[in-house]
C-alpha cells in the first residue's frame, strides 16, 4: 500500500512542465490533484518512474470567458468549479452535475483536467463535456491542439492524449437563451460513483425542440452521446409522449456494461427513468 519509488519533478512554468513531459514521455505521470493517480500508485496498479507535479504551474487553474466560450484551466479544482459563479451562469449543467461529484476533501484537491485525463466512465464530467460540445485544449512541447470532447474520450480510462502531451484547458460554449440543461443520476450514497447518470441540453423555440444533446455516465465508455435519441427529439414538442419515447430509446441505445451494484438490464431501466427526469427538468428550464 505504498507507492513504488519515483523521481519527482516540480516545474515552475508551463514550458518547463511540457519539456519534462516530453523528455520522460511514457515513463512519467502528471500529478494534478492526485485523487485517482495516487490511489492507483498506492495499490501499485501504476508505477511511474517519474512524477511531474504541475500544481505550482501558474495560470493553469484560471476560469474565464473568452468570446463565446467558458474556458476552464486544467488545474481548476472541483471545489472551485462547484462554487464558481461563472460556471453556474454559463454552464449550469456542470454546476448541477458537480453537486454529485465525490466528497469535500476529494473536491478540494481533484481537478477537471485530471478527471478527464483519467477518463473514468463512471465520472459525471466526461458526459457533461460531451453534452455541452466542449473542446479539449492539449499541448506538448512543440504545439497546441484542440479537439472535440467526444473525440477526446476513446474508451474506458483511455483518451486521445499522446505521450508528451497534457490537457491545458477545457472550452465550453456558453449557455444560450432558450436552452435548458439538467443532470440526473442514480447512486447508492451521495458522492459515490453513480450507477447511471444522464445529462441533457435542449433548446426550445416556438414550442418545439430545435436542438437536443444527451450523454450518459456509468456506462462502458466515458463521454458518449446518444445521437439517435437526439435526432428523435428535434422538431418535436417536448410533451410526455416525446419524452417517454426518447427515454425508451436512450435505455435501448446505451452500452451499459455491468457493475457490482447494477447489472445491465437495471442500468437500462435507470437510464430510461433518468432521461425522463432530465428532459422534463430541462424543458421547464428552457421555457
Amino acid at each position: 500500500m505504498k507507492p513504488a519509488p519515483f523521481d519527482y519533478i516540480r516545474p515552475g512554468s508551463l514550458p518547463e512542465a511540457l519539456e519534462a513531459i516530453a523528455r520522460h514521455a511514457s515513463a512519467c505521470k502528471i500529478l494534478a490533484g492526485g485523487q485517482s493517480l495516487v490511489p492507483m500508485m498506492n495499490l501499485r496498479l501504476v508505477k511511474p518512474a517519474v512524477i511531474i507535479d504541475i500544481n505550482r504551474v501558474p495560470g493553469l487553474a484560471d476560469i474565464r470567458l473568452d468570446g463565446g466560450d467558458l474556458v476552464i484551466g486544467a488545474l481548476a479544482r472541483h471545489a472551485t468549479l462547484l462554487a464558481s459563479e461563472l460556471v453556474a451562469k454559463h454552464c449550469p449543467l456542470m454546476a448541477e452535475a458537480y453537486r454529485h461529484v465525490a466528497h469535500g476533501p476529494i473536491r478540494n484537491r481533484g481537478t477537471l483536467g485530471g478527471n478527464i485525463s483519467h477518463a473514468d466512465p463512471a465520472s459525471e464530467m466526461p458526459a457533461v463535456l460531451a453534452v455541452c460540445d466542449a473542446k479539449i485544449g492539449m499541448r506538448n512541447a512543440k504545439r497546441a491542439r484542440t479537439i472535440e470532447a467526444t473525440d477526446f474520450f476513446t474508451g474506458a480510462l483511455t483518451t486521445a492524449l499522446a505521450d508528451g502531451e497534457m490537457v491545458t484547458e477545457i472550452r465550453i460554449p456558453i449557455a444560450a437563451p432558450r436552452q435548458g440543461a439538467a443532470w440526473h443520476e442514480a447512486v447508492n450514497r451521495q458522492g459515490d460513483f453513480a450507477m447511471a447518470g444522464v445529462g441533457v441540453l435542449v433548446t426550445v423555440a416556438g414550442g418545439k425542440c430545435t436542438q437536443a444533446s444527451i450523454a450518459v455516465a456509468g456506462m462502458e465508455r466515458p463521454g458518449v452521446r446518444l445521437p439517435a435519441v437526439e435526432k428523435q427529439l428535434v422538431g418535436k414538442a417536448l410533451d410526455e409522449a416525446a419524452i417517454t419515447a426518447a427515454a425508451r430509446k436512450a435505455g435501448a441505445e446505451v452500452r451499459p456494461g455491468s457493475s457490482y451494484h447494477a447489472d445491465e438490464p437495471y442500468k437500462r431501466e435507470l437510464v430510461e427513468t433518468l432521461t425522463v427526469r432530465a428532459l422534463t427538468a430541462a424543458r421547464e428550464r428552457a421555457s
Partner: protein
Amino acid sequence: MALIPISLKVNGTQYERAVEPRRLLSDFLREDLDLKATHVGCEHGVCGTCTVLVDGEAVRSCLSFAVQADGAELRTADGLAQGGKLNALQQGFWEKHGLQCGFCTPGMLMVATELLERNAQPTKAEIEEAISANLCRCTGYYTIVESVQRAVELMKEGAK
C-alpha cells in the same frame, strides 16, 4: 532515490526534513514527525481517517506526497486541544459519545473543523454532507452529528 528537503508548518511548529518523493503525507506526519493523531486506514482515499487541513482545506493525507506540502501550513488532530484542554469540537465528541473505537475520529474532527470554520451555524444536512466523506463503523453517525451540533452550542456559549 535522492532525498528532497522540505519545510512546512504543522500545528504552528516549523519543521525542516528531507523526504523520499514517494513518502505519503500521512506516513510523514506519523513516522517522521511522530504526530500520531492522524490515522491511516484504507490508504486509497476512501475511509477519510487520514484527513488533515492543508492551508485550511481538508485533504486526504494518504493521497498527498509529503514533498507536495513543502511551504504549506498543516493542521492535524494533534493540535486541536489548547493547553491540555479539549477544544469545543472535541468536548462535543466527549459529551455526545461521538466515538466508540476512535479510529475514524481524527478524520471526523478535521472535516468538522473545516466545516465550522466556513459555516458557524451548519444545518444537520450540512453536517451530514461534511462527514459523508468519512467512514465510521461504530456509531451509525448519529452521535457524530450530535457531537458537531453540541460543538456549535459550546462555541456559541464560549463567544458570549
